[in-house]
């Protein structure tokens, strides 16, 4: 088997919680707590989960925009977590990010040309003439026109700005794109345009995607495999079809059953979970889902369930499946 393009092992990020008069450290937010997964070249791994479960923190650590508390990230055979800052800058040519809010991530005072030129300048790619040509080429690729190069971000609609965000990420010919909620801020009719664009680009440029989102319909549409996060943990990870058709983790089941479906005749199988997501500063013991889980057993509040494969390509962290696992 070929090596995956990206491999993540035991990744953790604890943020200190400060408070009181002297800003003393009072505790830790375990934003991401020991997650492992891999991404194969050319595929899309979707990551879903509710607000605050650690999706963005994970994405930022892969780019080393945040330094992990613990864990190892290997990209294309190179261990990113041990690179120096300058080596990491070079590696970023191959890993780019697309953000949720295209407006906040584009400098309002810079023309589109300047915004798209910047990654080329940073990575010293081409001469000024080539750079200009490349800017125009990529504007066309994402469905804008080269005359847009002279305009400024505020002159574009949300969907167009997201196209610019995608063009910027493509400028350095990256292998991996981490897209953090790239269509969440867009209207439904514009979402479809951007999703189609991302799929076309993946096919034409052989891109690998990590697609972070909270919309389970969008994630099913775009992903080959999907990971479900809950309170800093990976609850379940499987190929898209098995995850949606045969969810194993009680949280995944509840999540899927809560999504409103655009069909008034649809009768759902309801898995109702009570209450709210607990605070990551004070997560429940054992399985982090035990406070809301309809299948909770005694062991669940005492022991952290292992995240491991129960079927080929289908991993889950839940005591219900402990017997099914190869030891």
């Amino acid at each position, binding site marked *: 088997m070929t090596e995956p393009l990206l491999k993540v092992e035991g990744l953790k990020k604890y943020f200190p919680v400060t408070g009181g008069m002297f800003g003393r450290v009072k505790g830790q937010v375990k934003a991401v707590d020991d997650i492992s997964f891999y991404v194969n070249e050319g595929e899309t791994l979707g990551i879903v989960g*509710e*607000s605050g479960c650690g999706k963005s923190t994970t994405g930022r650590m892969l780019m080393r925009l945040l330094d992990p508390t613990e864990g190892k990230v290997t990209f294309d055979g190179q261990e990113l977590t041990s690179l120096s800052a300058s080596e990491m800058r070079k590696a970023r040519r191959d890993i780019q990010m697309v953000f949720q809010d295209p407006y906040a991530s584009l400098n309002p005072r810079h023309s589109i040309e300047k915004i798209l030129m910047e990654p080329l300048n940073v990575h010293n790619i081409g001469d000024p003439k080539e750079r200009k040509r490349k800017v125009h080429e990529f504007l066309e690729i994402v469905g804008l026109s080269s005359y847009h190069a002279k305009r400024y971000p505020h002159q574009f*609609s949300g*969907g*167009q700005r997201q196209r610019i965000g995608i063009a910027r990420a493509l400028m350095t010919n990256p292998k991996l794109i981490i897209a953090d909620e790239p269509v969440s801020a867009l*209207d*439904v*009719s*514009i*979402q*479809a*345009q951007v*999703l*189609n664009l991302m*799929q076309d680009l993946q096919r034409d440029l052989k891109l690998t995607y990590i697609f972070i989102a*909270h*919309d*389970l*319909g*969008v994630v*099913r*549409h775009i992903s080959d495999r999907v990971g479900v996060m809950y309170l800093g943990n990976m609850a379940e990870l499987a190929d*898209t079809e098995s995850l*949606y058709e045969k969810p194993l983790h009680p949280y995944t089941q*509840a*999540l*899927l*059953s*809560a*999504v*409103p*479906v*655009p*069909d*008034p*005749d*649809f009768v759902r199988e309801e898995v*109702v*979970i009570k209450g*709210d*997501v607990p605070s990551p500063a004070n997560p429940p013991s054992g399985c982090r889902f035990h406070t809301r889980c309809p299948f909770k057993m005694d062991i669940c509040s005492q022991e952290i369930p292992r995240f491991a494969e129960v079927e080929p390509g289908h991993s889950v962290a839940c005591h219900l499946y402990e017997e099914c696992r190869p030891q």
Partner: protein
Amino acid sequence: MDERKTILDVKGLRTSFFTDDGEVPAVDNVDFHIRQGEVLGIVGESGCGKSVTSLSIMGLVPSPPGKIVSGEILFQDKDLTKLSDKEMRQIRGDDIAMIFQEPMTSLNPLFTIGNQLREALKIHKKDWSKSQIQERAVEMMKLVGLPRAEALLNDYPHQLSGGMRQRVMIAMALLCDPKVLIADEPTTALDVTIQAQILKLIKNLNERLDTAVLLITHDLGVVAETCERVVVMYAGKVVEEGPVHTIFNDPQHPYTRGLLESVPDMRFKKERLYSIPGNVPKPGSIKVGCKYAARCEFAFDRCRVEDPALYQTAEDHKTRCFLFDPKEAESHDRTVVES
């Protein structure tokens, strides 16, 4: 035909903002009605005028720059657009109540939950005793499924989660048994598992209390799940109106059809999403013709020069599109649309 009586009737509503560019009609000749005990959905993309419609009903359009230019909002034989501020205050929170997308904008962070519920009650129930007011506050907190209702009344809004705050907002809105509850994107800021709880609560209360609900959302899934009838808005206009089953199973307006085809469905994988070309127009930017013409795959010459009317296509269904103009139907091949 639905026999329930109409409780709120919006007729020819036009609400504009007067800016440096002149009059911008955010809501343009909008008609719809809500029947007693019904859940009506208004769905549309951002900026199409959903919130301005609900603010118009509540008499809360920021003025200036906004103003209801024409039209009527009939509630129990009264035209709300003609009422004084004082009369409107009497109705607001009593007969017609509203919940917003972000509960924090309507809860005061400096006062306890109990304090805010009691104050809201005092406005409308001047003759109630202290204990009656307290009892009612606790009762409503329990009704919306909040745990430890009594203790929670002493908490401040920031001590509650987003889902709990939205429940408090609903409790507050229902304090005086309103006849109409307007919910503007009540679950947009919430996670799906919490959204499911809140939608269930709204539906449940609608059934138990017979409160009519106007549910405003951009989420077609939420509409399909909660509403009986649907109004689809585009660029300040109602483009289609009908029962939820017909809107989803047999949509007529090209925009409604495009919108439904472009949403990914969680239950199965579509090979490729249909995508409506172009952008959502800014209000007031399209002055002549059908507002959807620039993006519509069926547009023909008439669409670019004339504004289509809202044609009655069935007893309870209306569509603003020339393809449904009885006069056009003769000259036009309807199979194009049916395919």
